[in-house]
Every structure is written in structure tokens, then in C-alpha cells.
């Protein structure tokens, strides 16, 4: 980083005569930086230590939109949702102390799910650092393990370069959250603003590795020699904006492909080579055949334990090709035969060029045969139940029918999440927003608000459980005040369903504190000016869902579903993926 020279008395060193400068405060420099980075939306919450920045924001409100959330956790989840649907950096403002600590869950979530987010937190005056001042907390050390980078600014002169570096780090390579902590004195300090320079190089940071063609060549040879190749794709395809390159690759090579939870929507669900979702509650065929393929090609995914199940029985028969931008992921969990380190936007076309045009008809037919088995045993009854009690799956089926797969589906965490990920149809990329790695309950509602700001022309449906909605229900207030047209679908089974399912299956039905009561959600929503209804009868489902989707604004729909329904198939913890249970 090229830091400005700072003299001892905290003023900027004299600039050359030919340099035009404008006097600005640190707070104004923050907003100038955001505008220069093309930021249109900030999710935030003011407080003492960030007041100078909010004061400056008052003058910039024509150029930049600020969404006042109801809790700082909501601001960062919203920024994540925004980043996921827009492909741009989400921006958060929060104050020092509790404002900053309330960001922690979201930072951890954004870190593990590689969401580009820049958080700007206020901090007490520099001379008070370390004195246990009011609302002082050591946010830099608290957030170090859950940020890609963080930095404390104590002098206004550092602001332009620190923010330029923050945006560069957040959005490049494997993206992630960055936190910039700015002391109050730096916010109010006037300095000669040298203008804003977008950062595109930091010498100690190599976001984009050079692709080594010999490994692409080796990967192609392996793929060309395969009889039963199988592709696993993750969010890397979406982050790399490589959806077209990915499709071209699988279509030429004729290889069946399965998505991780985070990779959903990178390839349209109805694509003939899309064979479903991986993982603990993924589809039957891709899990079973992982242990039968001869070449496993992993693209932009990280072999999470929910994907691999028992690692020492995972794809042992297969040669593994791993394409990833992050070298730390290669060989981290699964031994790679050939690693192609690089941006898949670059590596996939190189690979496509070298692979032979193939159709693996018989191999693909095996996926389809197992899929039929899953449909017969699980899917058909989940989507078209014969009993009077509604299922989560049929609610998702109706969304598919009414939106044709064009909706953005945001989920919370738990049973409804797995059902939504399993059954939601996606026709275009950046349509699935879910907390994959961290599994953050309470993510859904604020993330959906941000997702709508990131893609305001799309239908955004937030699918949330009765437990998760109660964790961040205060964000109804944000919807009320700023009008995000989020469709809130609560699938209420009157239980903390996923934990209850585990207690049923693995703890002898000892239902320990999973019986959760809920308020009258419709009345709560109404109190926030959000119209809605609750249904418990199948005959109302489609019409209610249609009403929700057609409503010009946010709408709340509660669907009462079976209390003790389970999500199947399931790879029990400690089992191999091929030991997946259909019931």
C-alpha cells in the first residue's frame, strides 16, 4: 500500500506544487471514497463514534442511499444479500463498541461464504484507545480471524488509501469481508484531500494467480480419459462470473454436474446435465455416485464436511481435479490429483478447448435412474402430499410454478433451508441466497432485504422458519420504513425443526427445547405495516402465494406445515456419502 507520508504532528506532508487538493474532513473523504467506488447503497446504524460520518452523509443523501436497519446484525446480512444478488461490494456503517460487536456474526458468515463486504465502524478518539472509554471495544482484534483484512485508521490522511485497499481486497480473488475502524478524531480532522485512487495492486496480495497451462493440460488429459467423470460446482462459478464458461465446459465434455448449496443457480436447474445438489440433504444420485465416478472435477468449491460426509470414505476410487482460486483450498480436505489454481473465468475456457466433445449417456442415465428412485421414495410425496397436512416442499413447488424459477430465493437456516435448496428451481445465476458455511439462523430476513436492493427488479422470496424469523424479526421495521418489496414466506412447523429431526433420529426422540412458540406473526407484520395472512389449508396455498407474489410491496405469508416432517435424503454424520438414507 502506498501510504501518504504523515508528519509527526498528524498533518499531511507538503504536497508537490502541481497537485490540486481540496480540504475535506475525514468523514467527507469516506463518502467521496464510496462514491468513487460506485457504491449506491449503505446499510447502517448510527451511534456516537460514527456521528461525523453520518453528519457528512446528510449532505450526500442525494448521491447515496442509506438504509437504516434495526440491528447492526441486520445491516451486515443485508449487505451480504446485496452482494450476492448484485455481484458488487456490500457496504455497512456501524458505530463503535456494541455497534461493531453486533457485526461479528455477519462478518463470520461473510468470511466463510466469501461475500465481498466493506464495514466501516466508528471508533473512540485515538487518544482514548485502550482506556476502556465509553463504547470502546477492540474491534480490530475481535474481528481479525473473521475478516479477510481489517485496519484501524487514526488519521484522516489514511482514509483514501485505506478504503481503496479495503474495496480491492473485498472484491478480488476469493472475496471476503473487510472492516475499517475509523477513530472519531480522524473523522472530524480536516486534511488536504488528494483525490481518490482506485487500488488495483497491493504487493503482498496476489488475488489472481497465473494459470499454469501444464496443469490445465494434465486436467484435460485426465478428463478425456475418464469413463465416469463427475463435476461438482460451487459458488466460485458465480463469484467468478463464469456461468457461461462453465456451461460451455460441461456441455462440450458432456459431464453430469451437481451443485453445492452455495453453487445453486450457477447452472439452471433444468439443464440436462444438472444432476442435483450435493451434501448431507442433497440429492441421492450425486451423493451415491460420488463414490463411483472415476474422475471427480471440483470447480470453485471447498469440500466442506457437509458435502463430503466421512472423508476417509469419500471418492477414494476417483482421481480428483480441483479448480480453485484459493491455493489454501487445494488438498485441504481432499487429495487432488491435478490442481488447477486460478480464476475459473480463465481456467475453464482453457480446459474447454482441450477436452474432447463427449456424451456420457450411460453414465448420465445412472444419475437419472437413481433420481427416479429418489422421486419415488421422497420427492413425489414431499411435493404432492396426499395427507391433509401441508409440507414445506409443496410450498416451494408452488413458488416454482408461480415464478417459473425467476425468483431470488433467500433462506434462513434449518429444515426449510434444505427443502428450499433441494426443490427451488433457478433459471438464472445469483438467485439463491443462503447462509451456507456458518449456518446463521436469523440470516434470512435481513439478507432478503439486501438481496432486493441488489436486484430490485426481481421477485425476492425469503423462505424462513418459525425459529429463524424470531431471531431478526425487528427488520420488519426496515421494510416498513424503506419499502423493500420482500416476500416473506414463513414455513411454520412449531418446532426448531432441524434440531428436532436430529433429536428424533439420533437422540431417541428426546425433544429438548425444540418446541418453540410463536407470536401471531400476521399481527406482528401488520403492526409494521406489512400485509399478510396465515394459511393452514392446502386449498388456500396457491391463491395465497399468488397474492403474495403479485402484491406491489412486501407481503407476509405464514404456511402451517407438518410438525414432525423430516428432511430426507440424509447422510448421517460420520457416514459416507454413498450411505445416504432415503428415509
Amino acid at each position, binding site marked *: 500500500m502506498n501510504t501518504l507520508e504523515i508528519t509527526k504532528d498528524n498533518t499531511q506532508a507538503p504536497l508537490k506544487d502541481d497537485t490540486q487538493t481540496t480540504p475535506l474532513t475525514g468523514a467527507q473523504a469516506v463518502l467521496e471514497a464510496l462514491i468513487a467506488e460506485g457504491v449506491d447503497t449503505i446499510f447502517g446504524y448510527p451511534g456516537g463514534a460514527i456521528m461525523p460520518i453520518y453528519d457528512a452523509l446528510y449532505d450526500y443523501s442525494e448521491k447515496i442511499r442509506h438504509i437504516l436497519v434495526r440491528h447492526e446484525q441486520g445491516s451486515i446480512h443485508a449487505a451480504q444479500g446485496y452482494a450476492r444478488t448484485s455481484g458488487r461490494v456490500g457496504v455497512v456503517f456501524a458505530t463503535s463498541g456494541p455497534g461493531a460487536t453486533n457485526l461479528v456474526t455477519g462478518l463470520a458468515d461473510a468470511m466463510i461464504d466469501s461475500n465481498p463486504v466493506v464495514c466501516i465502524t466508528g471508533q473512540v478518539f485515538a487518544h482514548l484507545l485502550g482506556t476502556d472509554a465509553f463504547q470502546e471495544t477492540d474491534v480490530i482484534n475481535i474481528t481479525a480471524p473473521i475478516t479477510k483484512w481489517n485496519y484501524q485508521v487514526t488519521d484522516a490522511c489514511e482514509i483514501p488509501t485505506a478504503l481503496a485497499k479495503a474495496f480491492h481486497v473485498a472484491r478480488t480473488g476469493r472475496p471476503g469481508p473487510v472492516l475499517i475502524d475509523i477513530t472519531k478524531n480522524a473523522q472530524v480532522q480536516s486534511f488536504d484531500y488528494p483525490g481518490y485512487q482506485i487500488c488495483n495492486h497491493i504487493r*503482498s496480495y*496476489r488475488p489472481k494467480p*497465473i494459470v499454469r497451462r501444464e496443469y490445465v493440460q494434465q486436467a484435460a488429459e485426465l478428463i478425456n480419459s475418464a469413463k465416469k467423470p463427475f463435476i461438482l460446482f460451487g459458488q466460485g462459478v458465480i463469484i467468478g462470473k463464469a456461468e457461461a464458461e462453465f456451461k460451455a465446459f460441461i456441455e462440450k465434455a458432456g459431464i453430469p454436474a451437481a451443485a453445492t448449496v452455495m453453487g445453486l443457480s450457477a447452472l439452471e436447474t433444468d439443464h440436462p446435465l444438472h444432476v442435483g445438489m450435493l451434501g448431507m440433504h442433497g440429492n441421492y444420485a450425486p451423493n451415491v455416485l460420488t463414490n463411483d465416478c472415476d474422475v471427480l472435477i471440483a470447480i470453485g468449491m471447498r469440500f466442506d464436511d457437509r458435502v463430503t460426509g466421512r472423508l*476417509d470414505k469419500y471418492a477414494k476410487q476417483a482421481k480428483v481435479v480441483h479448480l480453485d482460486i484459493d*491455493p*489454501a483450498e487445494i488438498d485441504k480436505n481432499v*487429495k487432488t490429483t491435478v490442481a488447477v489454481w486460478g480464476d475459473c473465468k480463465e481456467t475453464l475456457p482453457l480446459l474447454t478447448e482441450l477436452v474432447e466433445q463427449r456424451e456420457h449417456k450411460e453414465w448420465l442415465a445412472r444419475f437419472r435412474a437413481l433420481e427416479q428412485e429418489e422421486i419415488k421414495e421422497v420427492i413425489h410425496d414431499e411435493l404432492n402430499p396426499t395427507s391433509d397436512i401441508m409440507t414445506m416442499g409443496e410450498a416451494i413447488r408452488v413458488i416454482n410454478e408461480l415464478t417459473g424459477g425467476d425468483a431470488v430465493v433467500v433462506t434462513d437456516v434449518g429444515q426449510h433451508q434444505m427443502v428450499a435448496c433441494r426443490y427451488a428451481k433457478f433459471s438464472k445465476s445469483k438467485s439463491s441466497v443462503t447462509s451456507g458455511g456458518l449456518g446463521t439462523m436469523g440470516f434470512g430476513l435481513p439478507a432478503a432485504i439486501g438481496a432486493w436492493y441488489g436486484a430490485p427488479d426481481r421477485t425476492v422470496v425469503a423462505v424462513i422458519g418459525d425459529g429463524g424469523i424470531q431471531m431478526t424479526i425487528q427488520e420488519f421495521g426496515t421494510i416498513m420504513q424503506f419499502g423493500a418489496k420482500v416476500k416473506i414466506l414463513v414455513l411454520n412447523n412449531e418446532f426448531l425443526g432441524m434440531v428436532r429431526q436430529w433429536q428424533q433420529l439420533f437422540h431417541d426422540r428426546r425433544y429438548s427445547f425444540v418446541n418453540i412458540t410463536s407470536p401471531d406473526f400476521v399481527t406482528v407484520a401488520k403492526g409494521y405495516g406489512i400485509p399478510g395472512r396465515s394459511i393452514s389449508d392446502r386449498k388456500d396455498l396457491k391463491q395465497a402465494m399468488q397474492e403474495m407474489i403479485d402484491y406491489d410491496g412486501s407481503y407476509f405469508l405464514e404456511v402451517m406445515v407438518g410438525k414432525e416432517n423430516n428432511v430426507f435424503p440424509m447422510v448421517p454424520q460420520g457416514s459416507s456419502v454413498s450411505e445416504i438414507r432415503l428415509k
Partner: protein
Amino acid sequence: MEKQEYTITLYTENSIGMIGRISNIFSRRKINIESLNTSPSEAEAIHRFTIVIHETEDVVRKLCRQIEKQVEVLKAYYNTNDEVIWQEQALYKVPTDVVTEKAPVERLLRRYGASAVVIRSDYTVFETAGHREEIDALTDALTEYNLIEFVRSARIAIIKDSEGFHKKLKEFEEAEPAGEVRENRYLDKQDKVFSM
């Protein structure tokens, strides 16, 4: 894979909080850092960390990759004890009368090449440098002669086959690295280092 001592050498930017970010990578995985030294390096404004841990090569390699992910780390190397020239320094404070009056103490200090740093009427401070075993042996011996204070530094190490960091730093400073830069050295020897 056998656990053994590894020396990890990092080249980093000199920024506040680096030690914390680096040590987090170890503590998160419940790995004990045996010794940690920070110092300037041969390259201007580049900091050098020397870390010693007792682990398998597989773990050490993964740790180095995680460390290199840190934005302000330029490079992480790891080496076995055979691959580095290393030593530690120690200071001993002993009562001066013991040194002057007890002949074995003098012999001991000579044998270990210890030299006096400060001589006062009440105590004398000696320093010595060497491998851990040598320092430990002298410490044990001096304990019998009223050793008042003892301190040992972290390991510092020079990598035998390293050409230094100047050339590498130039590569890093290039905005668009040249085609011959081969950053991905792990790929070339992954067969040798991996175990599950």
C-alpha cells in the same frame, strides 16, 4: 507422517496487528508455537517472522497456505532443522563470587563459549548462543551454582538454499507479474507432502 520441528519463515509487511493475525492461525487449530521471533529482513521495510512448531509436514504445509492468505504476508516458507542454520541466544545472571571462587563455573562457561556482558561486584551477566540443547545444558549446570536469572530468545534461522528476498520482492512489486513467475510451487511437489 512423523511430527518434527519445523522452522517457518515469513516475509510480511510491517503493520500493526500482524503478530495477532499470524498467531490466530495457530491457536485456532490448537497448535502451540514453540518460539516466535520478529525482525527486519534483508529486504527494506519487509519484516521477517521466524516461527518454530512441532508438527507433521502436512499440517505445516497447510498452515503456510493459510498464512499466505493473509493480505499483508508476502511469502511463507517452511524448513526442517537440516535445511536451516539456526540458533538461539541466552542470558544468565550468576553471583559474581560464584564465578570467581568456583573453578568448575569458569570451565563451564569456557566450554559453552559464554562471554561476560556485565560484571558487577554482586552479579555477572553472561551470554551464549547456540542450539537449544547446548543452552539447556549450560542452564542445568548453572542452576547448581545459584543461577539468579535466565532468559532464552526465540530461534532465529537462515535458510540454507535461500537466495534472499530481494528478487522475490521485485516480482511482488510488479503490478502484472511476469510470465515466468512460478508462485505455485506447492503444486510441483504435492505428491511428496500430502497425507490424509
